């Protein structure tokens, strides 16, 4: 079973993404900010990260930049999810190490298609 880390400071968003992903057969962990995500990512090999941008302590860009610096850790793909849809934010997201960028509010079908694409599950 593929293991996904959902990183978002909003409990409802985490629960929403967890429900969608678990229903589709994935195993899900949660982190409430970039610091907690980094701590978890350094000890657990996740297959995919779903990362919010605006979070206290360490935002999504900061998490991805720091995570991508860790040479000894499996560098799994990441989807950046945010309310901001401007080009500048997308550029920052990709520059930080995101593989795909989604704008909130996420739709279940769209989220799952992105997840499957990055996990190499698309036929």
């Amino acid at each position, binding site marked *: 079973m593929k293991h996904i880390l959902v990183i978002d400071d909003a409990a409802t968003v985490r629960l929403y993404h967890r429900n969608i992903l678990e229903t589709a057969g994935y195993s899900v962990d949660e982190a409430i900010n970039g610091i907690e995500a980094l701590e978890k990512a350094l000890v657990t090999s996740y297959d995919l990260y779903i990362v919010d941008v*605006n979070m206290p302590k360490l935002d999504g*860009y900061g998490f991805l930049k720091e995570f991508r610096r860790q040479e000894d850790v499996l560098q799994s793909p990441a989807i950046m999810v945010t309310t*901001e849809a401007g080009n500048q934010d997308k550029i*920052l997201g990709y520059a930080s190490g995101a593989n795909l960028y989604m704008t*909130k*509010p996420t739709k279940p079908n769209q989220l799952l298609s992105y997840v499957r694409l990055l996990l190499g599950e698309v036929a």
Partner: protein
Amino acid sequence: MAFIKKQQSSTETEDERKALRDFEGLCEELNHADSQVRRWAVRDLVEMPNASSVLVERLEHENNASVRTGILNALAQLRDTISLNGLIECLRSEDAALRNESIEILKELPDEVGAIIETLLKDSDSDVRIFAVNILESLRHENVEQWLIGVIEKDSHVNVCSTALDLLSEVGSEQAIPAIKKLKARFPDEPYVCFSADLALKRIEEGSQ
């Protein structure tokens, strides 16, 4: 052979710091190449009148994280109109870390934020309105629920409403129920809004039993 650590460097730094405590000197140090000098300048400027404007100006260019945190904390300590406007201006920054830090600082200023939150919640930029809702998350102010209800009743942007709804799920009471039901009816094709509204209604109803 035992290694004896040299002790004088911190004393010298302290002396140098004390020697330049006038306003002009500190303003110069605020632009110094050494981030430690800038950090001390921020700390000492808080004690000076008219410090707010130079700190806000420096904030726009400061790229060292710890100096920037020092400036944000100094502005929170000063709490005058210029400081508050400087903190609010950070909400428009492209820098997510600066935005989030200013949100955390503004959460600690309930009286000052309470006076301007309604203006922020009507800002033309939907992202600023979202950040204003984020500030309400742990703002100790009696009107928080009313402001959130106002947002989900009137704001046309789905993400602003969703952010307010997430928070209402935690702090909302029975008086929020009609507005939550109306919001769900307003965005019937948005799965996240429907999910979040159902969750909020369930939590509020369970909490009232």
